[in-house]
């Protein structure tokens, strides 16, 4: 009888054996099927001239026309400027963000005043809890021309006020700063945890050998933070084509004259949906983003696996 049971070790057998477990995970499976897998069917819109009445398969098929529109114009194509903005902003967020977070985490770990550490860490973590709408409020009230804080300060210093909303080139700094500001505390928590988990005896041994604080950081803390850093870096590189929609939309909003410097794939897709209602075009841009995003993850993972399998994501 045992042999027979083993023979029937298929799906149905598993199902009857672990009925409860299957039932317990069923909601999760159904959820992702409906809200993640079903929309994948909709990438077909990218090849149609969609209209709401005819729906998914009734709308006229137009082949690659939507993609041609995105790629039209060679070097000046819409898709290149969107891709460039998306990737460069993300790179700035990732690289500057991690360096700043590591710097702050190392300093905090070396300082001795417990209360100072606790208070400053709490305050730095606070922006993480705030909605992006509030970030928009902050930015607007700092940089608007008439009543903004920045111009108020310039005026009190006797300088002429600056029309920030008429200067697209300053917005890359503003957006990167806002991102750093919001995510600093989160990264510090992670890096501080990694530092705390370093074996204390290593530091003690270094102390006995007469290493000063700089050497300790340079030769112990930094090398031991490398795995955490590389892992976080790889994770973020996988999402390099995914723009931070909330951040950009709440800061830039519908200031069309800032688009050249601040438009990312996600804001473009959002506009095709909410303003033009060009479903085919928006889906095409989204498909481009999702497909190449996946290719980047797979490539990065493949290379990492060759160099050091410990860091591979899967």
């Amino acid at each position, binding site marked *: 009888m045992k042999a027979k049971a083993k023979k029937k070790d298929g799906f149905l057998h598993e199902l009857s054996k*672990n009925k409860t*477990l299957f039932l317990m995970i069923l909601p999760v499976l159904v959820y992702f099927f409906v809200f993640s897998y079903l*929309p994948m069917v*909709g990438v077909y819109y990218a090849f149609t001239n969609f209209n709401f009445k005819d729906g998914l398969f009734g709308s006229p098929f137009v082949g690659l026309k939507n993609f041609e529109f995105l790629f039209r114009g060679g070097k000046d194509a819409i898709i290149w400027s969107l891709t460039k903005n998306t990737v460069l902003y993300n790179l700035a967020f990732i690289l500057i963000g991690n360096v700043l977070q590591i710097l702050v985490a190392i300093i905090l770990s070396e300082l001795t005043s417990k209360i100072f550490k606790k208070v400053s860490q709490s305050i730095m973590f606070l922006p993480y809890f705030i909605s992006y709408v509030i970030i928009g409020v902050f930015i607007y*009230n700092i940089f608007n021309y008439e009543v903004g804080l920045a111009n108020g300060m310039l005026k009190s210093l006797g300088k002429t006020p600056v029309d920030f909303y008429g200067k697209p080139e300053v917005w890359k700094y503003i957006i990167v700063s806002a991102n750093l500001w919001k995510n600093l505390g989160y990264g510090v928590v992670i890096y501080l945890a990694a530092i705390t988990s370093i074996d204390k005896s290593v530091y003690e041994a270094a102390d006995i050998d007469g290493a000063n604080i700089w050497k300790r950081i340079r030769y112990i803390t930094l090398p031991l933070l490398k795995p955490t850093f590389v892992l976080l870096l790889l994770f973020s590189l996988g999402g390099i084509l995914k723009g931070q929609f909330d951040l950009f939309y709440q800061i830039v909003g519908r200031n069309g004259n800032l688009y050249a410097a601040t438009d990312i794939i996600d804001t473009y897709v959002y506009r095709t949906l909410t303003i033009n209602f060009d479903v085919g075009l928006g889906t095409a841009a989204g498909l481009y983003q*999702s497909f190449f995003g996946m290719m980047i993850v797979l490539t990065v993972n493949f290379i990492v696996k060759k160099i050091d399998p410990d860091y591979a994501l899967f």
Partner: protein
Amino acid sequence: MKIKQPVATKVFNIIGYVLITIITIFCLLPFIMVVSGSLTNEEYIIMHGYSLWPKDFSTQAYKTIFTYPKQILTAYGVTIMVTIIGTALGLFLISMGAYVLNRKDFKYRNGMSFYIYFTTLFGGGLIPWYILMTKYLHLKDTYLVLILPLLMTPFLIILMRNFFKSIPDSIVESAKIDGAGDFTIYAKLIMPLSKSALATIGLFLALAYWNDWFISSIYIDTPSKYTLQYLLYKILQDAEFLKSNAASNVTSSIQIPTETLKLATAVVATGPVILFYPFVQKYFVDGLIVGAVKG
């Protein structure tokens, strides 16, 4: 000999305290600016702009909000309801699913984990999702659409599973020998051991619900169904939105502050997060440490 701090440490400490203090102040400044602005007289702001300290103190903006509080209270009600239902339901489904994924004797756990993880690699994108939700599932302008999209994420399921990894398998095994069913083991044994994990995941969910404006912006048409953050967004875009609401209550042409009103609304919408923050911060930090470092 040991008492004297080395010079290098002294230099480091000075730089460290100064640098961290500056960064901390920068993190705090925008909050001070908004609170201070919301407590300043409207005319003063129009004349002189914002400052970091209310120079011409006035509570007019708050008075305006609370004179006609219906709109904000409705949004508060919607947001609180959505946050509570969404967090509770999400927590239940995530923990149940993650528990199954962590059961070593469950044959399909790796396949199912990949099925969930794959959705982070590839997706249909915003527009196919939007059309599915509106045209095929008919969720536009419903309360349900405010809850469903944020119910669970692959990240939270994996985080929860990583928490469960720290619970010894022997607990499950001995309970099975005693004849306990799988759901009983989950509900009676595993859940009580996972309070801090549940707190962390619950906070992630609650924060996502409380801070969401995007779902309202694409799916909700009826103003009485707006969530708090979206109402705030609408008011920022168009202070007329709030004025028209106020004016519909009273026909007299009273002077309504615009700029300070926006700031006061921002303070009222963010208040609960800031008030709860000192108490919940600990769970975030603890949870992130366990989830990130061990996972």
